[in-house]
């Protein structure tokens, strides 16, 4: 994920971890650990991605929506 901005890194991470349903959702704390960016940056970007419809945040969990999955894999089709 070198070279990608934080937004894209979050989307790619969730797709590769198959976090596409609530039962497969990733802990937000774990996501912040992996992304290794400032907490406030990650929180703000995740909020933006949720507004755009790419991910769902439920409590302490986060997973991709249908649009998020398609967005993530658009790199490779």
């Amino acid at each position, binding site marked *: 994920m070198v070279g990608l901005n934080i937004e894209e890194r979050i989307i790619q991470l969730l797709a590769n971890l198959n976090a*596409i349903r609530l039962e497969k959702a990733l802990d937000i704390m774990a996501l912040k650990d992996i992304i290794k960016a400032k907490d406030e940056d990650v929180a703000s970007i995740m909020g933006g991605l949720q507004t755009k419809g790419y991910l769902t945040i439920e409590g302490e969990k986060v997973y991709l929506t249908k649009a998020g999955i398609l967005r993530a894999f658009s790199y490779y089709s």
Partner: protein
Amino acid sequence: MKVLTLTWEYSPRIVGGISRHVEGLSEALVRRGAEVHVVTPDFPGVPYEEIVRGVHIHRVSVETPAPDFTTWVMLMNHYLAKRAADLANSLGGFDLVHAHDWLVTPVGIESKHFLGSDLITTLHSLEFKRVGSISSPFSRMVDSLEWWSTYESRRVIVCSNSMKWDVIHKFSVPEEKIMVIPNSIDTSKFDLHVDRRSVRLRYGVHNGERLVLFLGRLTPQKGCEYLIKAMRLLPSHLNAKLIVVGDGWMRNDLEREAFGSDIGWRVRFTGFLPDGEVVQLLKSADALVVPSVYEPFGMVALEGMAAGAPVVASNVDGLSEVIKHDYNGVLVYSRDPSSIAWGINRVLSDSGYVQWIVGNARTIIHEKYNWDAIASLTIDAYKREE
């Protein structure tokens, strides 16, 4: 004939054109008496197992988290192979395996050897054309998988003559091993009345304004950036507005390009839209622009033709086989905003010309690009020559 179809996308998981192609082909094969089992990754909101219009769909969860996309692909192949093996055991094997694109090459080859079945591969596009050169380690892997699929397959199907020659020259595949079978679309979904005025208003296109439509993934291959630049070159009296339907990793850059210029108010990004909404937009558009840099076929051009939208397309690869300039559409130079602007201007300025190309396009669609004809050709590809 019992067919195991392998694909990384199947409706409603629609990343690119593969999904629509495999869906249309599978349903047409079923209508011709084949038993088709599609094994594909899962997607939220749809069941793991279902039969849709006669096609047996088996969706598989990739249970193991992956650190990157390459690993994800290999794990996905493992889980597809596991499901394919279970199916083969319960169904008594398959007559052949049909794999779509490099993403399922490993499972396609495994299935061929385990099942003792023939492997047919459809290559939908090629890495060296998508990225321009095979320089990164990732591209080297994809390129190699594409080659491997042609080597292991009894027959390689491609969607255009330009792609056939690309495969022959790139992978040294014997010409007789390759079969060109074009893509198709389901024209019946365009047989509906649409209130164009209300559709256009929904997207902010008012009376006296013209609707220019882009439909596709927002990636460099699709060339949307050149279309946005072209919009700036259009004469103001045309009152053209651009609706960009689709999504992709370039979206932020494209929005910056559009909204950072004086034409920002004339561009709207919708993201992904449901099929029904796309059909309504296609039927309401004054021009559908396909500004791709590389397009092995160009399914979206067919959709525009079926919907009665005048198509302005790049003169590249498969698109130049689908569109005959000044006959069923307008061909323009790729990566050239001024040429794209010229093409849009051509169709927005001459209603008689539009009637001519739209009429010809409809005739060609019905004569040449229907799924039953494509299924018949595919069954020919499946058959062994005695």
